[in-house]
């Protein structure tokens, strides 16, 4: 009895310690953003002054980051889901090769990818200076996450036979794709979307090279603020980032719960004894 209680206490303490390790810096950083003077400490009082200052100075970076991550999600969905479907349908060596190639931008340092993009497309001034240049980098970086998570779900089900079953009932390709394929990889799509949005929102090292003074994203602005302004402003910036990303994550998590069924024939009797 005493040993098990001791073990329980030990486990609890360990868990709390790990939680503290993860959460305390975050809380301290957010608090710093609300402190009147960080060097004096909390005794200097709480203020929204820094948050307001970030909002007025860096508002456009926040909207740009939101815009890019939504656009990035749209592009990775449009490209990634059909790619994953094709890869799942053709399990040959070429498909394996493409799957590996897709991961390359993830494995390479972001700076290297960014440099390659600049070398290749830098001469097109209009493109180089527009936000779509950053979008291309983000899509390169995040596409593999979408493809992988959808492919993982599609590989776990017998997609070919499911489609044959639907076809035998008269469903054409489009109907099969929207009625059978998409709903059955829903969880993979949601998991992939979660990854893509958060990665695009927080991407720094590639964006650092790709951005121009007019296309600054939130993490680039954050670095800027830490480097050139008061620590409180940088921390207030972090606070705003959290306020944006956490509702988004919670929303996507809620979506991925199993949905209830709809179709219930009127004369079914749920109490009837079922034959073996």
């Amino acid at each position, binding site marked *: 009895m005493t040993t098990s209680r001791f073990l329980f206490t030990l486990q609890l303490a360990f868990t709390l310690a790990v939680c503290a390790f993860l959460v305390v810096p975050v809380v301290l950083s957010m608090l710093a953003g609300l402190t009147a003077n960080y060097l004096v400490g909390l005794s200097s009082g709480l203020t929204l002054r820094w948050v307001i200052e970030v909002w007025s100075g860096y508002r456009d970076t926040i909207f740009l980051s939101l815009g890019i991550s939504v656009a990035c999600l749209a592009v990775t969905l449009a490209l990634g889901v059909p790619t994953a479907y094709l890869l799942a349908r053709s399990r040959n060596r070429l498909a394996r090769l493409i799957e590996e190639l897709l991961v390359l931008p993830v494995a390479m340092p972001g700076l290297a990818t960014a440099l390659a993009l600049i070398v290749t497309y830098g001469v097109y001034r209009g493109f180089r200076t527009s936000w779509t240049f950053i979008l291309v980098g983000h899509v390169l970086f995040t596409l593999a996450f979408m493809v992988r998570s959808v492919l993982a779900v599609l590989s776990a089900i017998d997609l070919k036979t499911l489609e044959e*079953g639907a076809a*035998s009932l008269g469903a*054409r390709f489009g*109907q099969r794709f929207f009625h059978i394929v998409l709903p059955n990889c829903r969880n993979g799509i949601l998991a992939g979307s979660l990854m893509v949005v958060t990665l695009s929102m927080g991407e720094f090292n590639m964006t650092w090279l790709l951005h121009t003074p007019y296309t600054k994203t939130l993490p680039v602005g954050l670095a800027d603020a830490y480097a050139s302004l008061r620590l409180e402003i940088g921390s207030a910036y972090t606070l705003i980032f959290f306020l944006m990303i956490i509702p988004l994550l919670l929303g996507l998590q809620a979506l991925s719960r199993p949905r209830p069924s709809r179709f219930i024939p009127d004369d079914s009797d749920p109490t009837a004894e079922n034959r073996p």
Partner: protein
Amino acid sequence: MNPDPAKPLAIRLQSCAKTFDTGVRALEPMDLAIDAGETLVLLGPSGCGKTTTLRLIAGLERPDPGGKVFFDDREVTRESIEKRNVGMVFQSYALFPNMTVAENIGYGLRIRRVPAAGQRARVSEMLSMMRIEPLADRRVDQISGGQRQRVALARALAVQPRALLLDEPLTSLDAQLRETLRVEINLLLRRLGITTVYVTHDQTEAMALGDRIIVMSHGRVAQTGTPREIYHHPASAFVADFIGTMNRLPGELVGGRFQCACGSLPWSGGNGDIRELLFRPEDVRIADDGEDADLSGTVAAAFFVGDRTRVLVDAAGSQLVAESPARCTLQVGQAVRLRVDARGLLAL
């Protein structure tokens, strides 16, 4: 697309061969005519081409150039499965995990844009026909294997297909359930009078369900016939061995009797160079004391299987299988004499 759902469909394959991209020849050129309303069983070991034949009929595979598929008198070789209006049941059931039981059954109707009320009525009808009404709004991962098989059948039949194609539908079920469902499917097919092609490797299933059986081996038809013809008059050693157990006894014809090492058997099937006679275990029995017998040997083993005892007899080097009443008390090593029913003797 569906001229007259009440009229069963006749299906014809004309020199249909199938070679896969890998170069493997799954099916040698095959001609096959399936009568309207008939239940045809394609039977054979795995890799014999039976499933490929079914998929050619379904439209899931295209025959090699030159092969043609006809539904009644219309050629459908180039038509994809979604236009052929055939009901298909897969070994893995292929139920849609994102839909409930009722949604699965109603899917074909939804594709055909049947009005909602009509869909509900037909789904209810199918649920009650398969006796699975209480499962209507369960998800397919919340029901048992036998129930899934019923849902798969209901889904295939809901759209009133012109033919029903079943690919090893009972293989993934346990023995007892398989037997129950086999009887159910048999009654259902008789009642519906629908043209059915049933693929299986299980000869018991084939015998119980088929109006006609096609035994296949290595991409070719080994024999076509009714279950009785195939069982009692196998055309080859392969068919004889694949369908049930067959005793084989080497020897030669000497003056109207077939002489072998362990005795002799009466033979009236004509002369010719006969070196081997075949007979089924149920045509051999252990002779009583004092009774005339044809063969003799010693008991090598006896397996009690409930309703009877299967006796393995070592007859001068040949292993023979005989069937005995359940209550016989034979000891291993005991000398026995065997009587063979002359009507069951076969020569290939």
